[in-house]
């Protein structure tokens, strides 16, 4: 067999292998064995209740589902919801004027048992007292289950999900928001390209901040990345400051870009535009060495001419 013929045979074999393999590339079956044994799911994870009228009752429901491979018992209860710090770490034990709703909520069932793939709809009622304070009210409905298979474990773990309820009692409400900071780093050694911001809710009801990131090449107005269609939205609670970071995770590893962050909060819109340089450290070192070697060569050449 000649070399040419061998090459043609190998090429045909490669094509057939790739074609055969392509059948399986997009096949990604998830077997039941991949699912955890105790896997608790609820829907929805947040609820915007809107305005609560004092002296009335508001109702709603949510779904509890078992998406694991083992049955479990669960229980339902409600706790206050507040946050701590600019990173918005949840606090489920604060008792203040904004968490009174946690005392107004009752459930038609507060415990149950679910087989794998089973689900239960739970109904809740919110009895708003006539003297409810004006302004935002926030709570978390907790659904909790045991690990189910760890009675003899040193550390027994409990799985819990929180359904965050956002609402406000009508009356004297004040929607006040400030954009305190906005920034983007000018130089990065690696992706992602990102921008940060800090907003403050100075009112007594929750407000939603909306963040958009757009990235353009150095000499063009054509976007190469934009979150305009799906902006980041972050709820801010009364009396809190919230830090946010919006990023383009798959940004190229090298280049100069124009980055634009748009923040919409309360009735304000602020825009940050900045040039960002991305250059890996190894490339910086290489450029420095290259420039250094050129300078060294020029100096040596100058000296040798002098001699």
């Amino acid at each position, binding site marked *: 067999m000649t070399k040419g013929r061998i090459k043609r045979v190998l090429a045909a074999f490669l094509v057939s292998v790739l074609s055969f393999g392509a059948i399986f590339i997009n096949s990604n079956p998830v077997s039941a064995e991949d699912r955890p*044994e105790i896997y608790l799911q609820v829907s*929805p994870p947040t609820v915007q209740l809107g305005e609560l009228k004092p002296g009335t009752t508001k109702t709603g429901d949510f779904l509890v589902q078992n998406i694991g491979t083992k049955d479990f018992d669960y229980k339902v209860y409600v706790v206050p919801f507040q946050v701590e710090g600019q*990173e918005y770490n949840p606090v489920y034990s604060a008792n203040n004027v904004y968490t009174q709703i946690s005392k107004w909520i009752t459930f038609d069932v507060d415990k149950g048992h679910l087989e794998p793939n089973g689900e239960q709809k739970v109904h809740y009622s919110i009895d708003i007292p006539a003297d409810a304070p004006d302004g935002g009210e926030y709570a978390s409905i907790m659904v909790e289950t045991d690990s189910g298979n760890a009675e003899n474990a040193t550390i027994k773990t409990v799985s819990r999900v929180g359904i965050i309820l956002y609402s406000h009692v009508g009356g004297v409400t004040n929607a006040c928001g400030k954009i305190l900071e906005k920034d983007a780093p000018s130089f990065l050694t690696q992706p992602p390209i990102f921008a940060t911001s800090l907003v403050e809710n100075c009112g007594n009801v929750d407000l939603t901040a909306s963040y958009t990131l757009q990235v353009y090449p150095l000499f063009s107005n054509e976007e190469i990345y934009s979150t305009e269609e799906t902006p980041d939205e972050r709820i801010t609670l009364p009396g809190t400051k919230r830090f946010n970071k919006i990023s383009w995770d798959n940004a190229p590893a090298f280049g100069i870009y124009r980055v634009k962050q748009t923040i919409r909060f309360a009735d304000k819109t602020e825009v940050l535009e900045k040039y960002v340089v991305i250059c890996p450290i190894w490339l910086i070192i290489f450029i420095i060495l290259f420039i250094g070697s050129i300078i060294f060569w020029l100096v040596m050449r100058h000296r040798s001419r002098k001699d």
Partner: protein
Amino acid sequence: MVYKKIIAGLGVATALGIAALPVAGTFAESANVDVTVNVGATIAISAASPAAVSMTPGQKTSSNAANITVSTNSAGGYKLTVKDADTNTALVNANGTIPAVSGALEAGTAGWNITGGDLVNVAISTEDQTVKTNTNSTHTAIANDVTAMTYNFATGDAQVTGEYKDTIVYTATAL
């Protein structure tokens, strides 16, 4: 000759593949039908317990990693927190305790803590502590995001024999 047979074989396979493709429909009347699927927002959690740990007095060890799995299609992502299930953060036995202690543990001094996510050798608390924040920066559904947790233990030189246990709660909430 062999080369010709290989080419012929590939040709037959290609022809069979084309023949297996769906054939275009015959001429017929058609009508547009709108199909709507409403996908609800969800959040899910699975908190696996580590295997039981066996120790002797004056020893230090860590458990095998136990996974905390979270899934959500919330656009903002989720936050994972951990706390003790009750007001006693120690591992409790009928005759003794192993207290929750932050930092590096030492064999001979009883203590236990957890490591995983943003927590490194952190003592469990009665208040929720953030283990992990996933802001879903890619704006896609988060499916089975795993955080591996390990539990670190040290026994005192005179640690009383018996089973020491505690229960902790992992909570996932949408951002």
